[in-house]
């Protein structure tokens, strides 16, 4: 049935040159430049406003900031408990990433390298849980944590973040562990290495790229999270940076440049990480969709 079509198509396309140009090169660039400008302009707005005096901003919100004003940054840092919030975010991010990666490495090792009943079910459950929105668990966890006095504690929130990022971690590490050639493990086995040593001394060192990717993606997620931090760490001195800046913003509502300086400082760690390790972000955030 497709044969005549195919022949016709061939005849048509083999006609003397002048293939249709499709989208002209110039148009492509125009579209891409426009898209890049739209993506970048709000960031540019944040960046330039942070270096402006309040008067300059009110006079003209889109002008270039000249001369540069740096006082907004010191005012932003002093205005809230910026450094405390920053420290809280670091503690939670590091804690959650360690727990999530550690638990996931153990589980992924078993899924990828051992046979047991329920293996596929466990992996499928992890894949499905990747999309369950945190708001669903919010109320029961809140009641549970109130009963166990875990509200306003680092360890409680670290457990929640580690748990919420765990399905993705298990999924990513399982896929990577499966790709490690068996010969590398076999030689260690003949040397009589225990399972745990195989994981720690062979598999994990070989998985460094996957581990970096995982750490980057999970750190980004925890650092940027708002809802859990808002509900489970209500005291000012325990707030994360994201909750802090949200509260800070409503307090400094009228001084836009100071707010923008605060936002810029809060974004800096992740943006710097992104600029240095872009491929890890891209690989990690698209894992699970490609060939998944």
């Amino acid at each position, binding site marked *: 049935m497709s044969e005549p079509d195919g022949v016709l198509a061939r005849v048509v*396309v083999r006609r003397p040159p002048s293939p*249709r140009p*499709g989208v002209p090169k110039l148009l492509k*660039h125009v*579209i*891409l430049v426009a*898209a*890049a400008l*739209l*993506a*970048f302009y*709000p*960031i540019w*707005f*944040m960046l330039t*406003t942070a270096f402006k005096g309040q008067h300059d901003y009110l006079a003209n919100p889109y002008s270039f900031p000249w001369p540069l004003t740096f006082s907004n940054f010191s005012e932003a840092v002093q205005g809230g408990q910026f450094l405390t919030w920053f420290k809280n975010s670091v503690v939670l991010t590091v804690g959650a990433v360690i727990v999530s990666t*550690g*638990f996931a490495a*153990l589980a992924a090792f*078993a*899924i990828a*390298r051992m046979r*047991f009943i329920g*293996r596929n079910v*466990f992996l499928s*459950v992890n894949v499905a*849980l990747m*999309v*369950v*929105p945190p708001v*669903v*668990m*919010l*109320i*029961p*966890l*809140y009641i549970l944590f109130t009963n166990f006095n875990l509200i306003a504690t680092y360890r409680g929130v670290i*457990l929640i973040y580690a*748990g*919420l990022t765990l399905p993705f971690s298990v999924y990513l590490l399982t896929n990577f562990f499966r790709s490690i050639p068996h010969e590398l493990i076999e030689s260690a*086995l003949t040397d009589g290495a225990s*399972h745990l040593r195989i994981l720690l001394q062979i598999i994990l060192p070989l998985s460094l790229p996957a581990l970096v990717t995982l750490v980057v993606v999970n750190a980004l997620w925890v650092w*940027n999270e*708002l*809802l859990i931090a*808002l*509900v489970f760490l209500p005291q000012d001195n325990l707030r994360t940076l*994201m909750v802090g*800046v*949200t509260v800070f*913003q409503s307090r400094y509502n009228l001084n*836009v440049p100071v707010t*923008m300086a605060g936002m810029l400082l809060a974004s800096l760690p992740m*943006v710097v990480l*992104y600029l240095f390790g872009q491929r890890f*972000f891209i690989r990690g*955030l*698209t894992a699970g*969709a*490609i060939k998944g």
Partner: protein
Amino acid sequence: MLRTRFWVPYAYIAPAAGLIAFIFAYPVAKMIDYSTRYPDDPNGARVGTRNYRLAFEDPTFRDAAKHSALLLLAVPILLAISVIVAVLLYDRVRGWRFYRSILFLPYILAVPIVGIVAGYFFQLNGVLNSILRAVGLGGLAFDWLGSERLALWTVMIVIVWREVGFGIVLFLARLLSMSEEPIEAARIDGAGWWRRLRHIILPELRGTIEFYVVVAAITMLAWVFAYVYTLTSGGPGTSTTVLELYIYNQGLVNSLPGIASAVAVLLLGATTILISILFWIRARARDEEVTFA
């Protein structure tokens, strides 16, 4: 595969399984239980479907459900922009890596920060309206976030602005991972850009498109709390209240965990249906591959 005693693998998955039970399984079971008990007392008597009926009778809930549904309109927009830009980048125009870096940058920024910055951007006397007035389009200088008619659409624009970076990078990664041979062959046969797109590239992207549509739909339904909270807190009035914000307000502000849980059950149900559709499509695609191989 490693040979092990039968219990060894279970010891390895135990920490992960335990934490998942604690963070996912237990709360979901409890939530279903709360949703059938007294609206303001999670340990109270069972009341059947009363919480669900109370939610449906609440105009705020109906507004929230409507707004969440309306936000799904962003899905085709996200899909169209991501595919078009990814395909343009895939043609290896000069500087495509640079464009990719810039286009992905919004996705690296935290949602609360995006929400706060956008809040100033769209203010009545914010930068957007200043620019519009300066170029003589003052008639378009609306109160983007302050008007009940526009606020939800402004929120949607902000969400699309940040989330589209993920779609672009996702589709581009898929394109870069596919074999170039069919495209080259088509190019040599004289197939124009449009033909190559329709007959080779889009069919190749089918699996990724299905994945993206489902994930984007789940995002719009159930992962937009931080945008709404920082941009509008659901206002003006209830004009940007979405289901997540409704759950948060009922459960934690109004202390009605029963009603909040009932709505959370519905939201989880919608998410489950969406992800099941994706699993089903994938399973079917795998079957087809086997059949035709």
